[in-house]
């Protein structure tokens, strides 16, 4: 603060107390500094248009890693402004409250791309300009990212909502069977990830229901096991709370966790692991899209291309907020052996065959799922 006052020369008491300059020198110094400040500001304003191009992206927290964004900014000489959000409803609300052109890029749950298309929010992408030919075939997700043959989004990252656990405190063999959670052996040592879609999907798998077949009737079958699991759990928490609980030994098992949750903790505690049980797991995938009202559509497309490039994919996969598998197989060469091991790169073929996609409920079923989830939390 003092430095600020000194620079402006406005705090003459400070100068009188801290310098031996006579009063007229102080005034003259102040005038020179004010003139310099004014000139600097004018120059900055004049120079502004040359470096003013910026890209505004509405993203998930993994995109906020400077290691991911800086190379793009340097290559294109632009600034990328990021705003993080959680939950599609929150993201869509931000877009609807913004002016057209405020946002250029959107990261969205792959299962919600059509929801954004319905609202005319997304711009068509040139499919030939995207490296989907290098993607894991299961992750192209054409049915989710395109409509009527038009591509509106592209998958950028994926992973699994499954079981994370502490090998030192839990029998890893038990973690191959979801029903172990209800066995009584781990009562009070379980946490549930606070997101209804993947956890209800996992419970559906445990009941022998495919996630794609989850309807209102099937949902009712999940009520009792969900409430039972809740009674056996210590807490239901979002990402940071779940990581903290697992890392501090508060709980030993996280239902709904996966590599995205334990990978960033692996260095501190290698015992934190994850697996896909026999019943299967839920595959999550996030997509990236350009907004229809983007003021910088070319730059926005360049950003999408960067994120889906092998380099961008590798950086996104190991982002500081959470890790996840890159959709682009070519990113494998950009990752270290250790990073690939943590991501279980070599097991992806098997995992992908055992994982089912997120449930995609319509508005009515979605409301029913959330009601059940609220009941579970409040009981």
């Amino acid at each position, binding site marked *: 603060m003092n430095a600020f006052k000194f620079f402006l020369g406005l705090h003459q008491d400070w100068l009188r107390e801290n310098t031996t300059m006579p009063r007229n020198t102080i005034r003259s110094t102040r005038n020179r500094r004010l003139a310099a400040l004014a000139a600097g500001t004018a120059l900055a304003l004049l120079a502004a248009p040359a470096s003013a191009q910026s890209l505004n992206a509405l993203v998930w927290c993994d995109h906020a890693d400077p290691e991911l964004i800086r190379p793009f900014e340097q290559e294109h000489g632009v600034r990328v402004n990021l705003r993080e959000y*959680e*939950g599609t*409803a*929150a993201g*869509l*609300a931000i877009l609807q409250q913004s002016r057209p052109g405020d946002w250029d890029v959107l990261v969205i749950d792959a299962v919600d791309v059509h*929801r954004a298309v319905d609202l005319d929010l997304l711009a068509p992408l040139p499919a030939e300009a995207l490296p989907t030919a290098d993607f894991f075939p299961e992750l192209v997700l054409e049915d989710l990212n395109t409509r009527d043959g038009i591509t509106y989004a592209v998958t950028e990252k994926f992973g699994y909502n499954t079981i994370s656990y502490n090998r030192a405190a839990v029998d890893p063999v038990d973690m191959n069977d979801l029903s172990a959670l209800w066995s009584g052996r781990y009562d*009070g040592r379980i946490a549930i990830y*606070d997101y*209804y879609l993947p956890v209800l999907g996992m419970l559906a798998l445990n009941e022998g229901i495919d996630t794609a077949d989850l309807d209102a009737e099937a949902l009712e079958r999940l009520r009792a096991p969900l409430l039972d699991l809740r009674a056996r759990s*210590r*807490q*239901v*928490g979002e990402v*940071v*709370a779940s990581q*903290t*609980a697992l890392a*501090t*030994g*508060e709980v030993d098992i996280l239902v709904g966790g996966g590599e995205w949750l334990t990978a960033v903790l692996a260095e501190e505690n290698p015992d934190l692991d994850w697996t896909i049980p026999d019943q299967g797991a839920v595959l999550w995938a996030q997509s990236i899209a350009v907004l229809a009202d983007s003021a910088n559509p070319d730059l926005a497309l360049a950003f999408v291309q960067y994120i889906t490039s092998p380099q961008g994919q590798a950086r996104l996969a190991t982002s500081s907020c959470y890790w996840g598998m890159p959709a682009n197989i070519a990113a494998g060469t950009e990752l270290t052996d250790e990073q690939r091991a943590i991501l279980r790169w070599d097991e992806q073929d098997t995992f992908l065959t055992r994982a089912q996609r997120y449930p995609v409920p319509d*508005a*009515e079923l*979605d*409301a029913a799922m*959330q*009601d059940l989830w*609220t*009941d579970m*939390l*409040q*009981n």
Partner: protein
Amino acid sequence: MTTARENRLGWGLVAPALAWVALFFALPFALMLGLSFARLEGRVVVQGFHLDNYLRFFTEPALFRGLIVSLEITAIVTVVSLALAYPLAWIIAFRVPRRWQRLALVLAILPFWTSYVVRSYAWLLVLGQNGVINRALLSTGLIDAPLIMSATRFATVTGFVHFFVMLLTLTIYANLVQLSPNYARAAADLGAGRLATFRHVILPLTLPGVMTGAFLTFVLCIGDYITPQILGGNNELTLPQLIMMQLGRRGDFPMASAMAVILMAVVTLAYLACARWLRMERV
């Protein structure tokens, strides 16, 4: 008698404050109130005058329970904070030498200097199974197994009390130091012991400060989202948490607005009760 010029000057002076309140309180509140009567159909907000959101709130146990949980936690926090803050303020006002009082107050408000979120996460680590308290108790042999404190209502209340004790200490201290020592002397002259002096003289005179602090605690506590979200482990949901769920997950702005209006009504009732009680005290 005021002249027209004085009137204009008066309005001119008040106008910025009125405009501020109208723009940043009255208008947003009116919009929120209007939205609370709209309805979410599918994923689309349909404007109109519907009471569905209010009916749903009072008939759906999981939602209504949020209000009850909020009131319970707020009541506990207010009572515990008062019980701790009054003696602390008393000690600072009457037992700490005057030259050290300023330092004591600075120490009392020290927790305000750290981020609210960081402070809550710090409590999570203190109260955890492997946290400071459990380790100390286990190492001294006072307990055989770790106590379960985090992700409980106890943790939420602890986080709140840590914050509000400081707030209440300040308001009560400000009241205590204004009391003339002659009140206590007069009571002693009339034969009152220390306890009787406190009960019949000091406490009634400081009650306005206590009530003001308690009301502030009530308002800030019942509307808080961060502390229960971090420390409560989602084992019970308060009303602000449920409001956030409507916004972040469902995109149900009408329902969230209705719940916010209900929360505001509760705070208004608390304010009216407090104001009425203070007026009665003055009479």
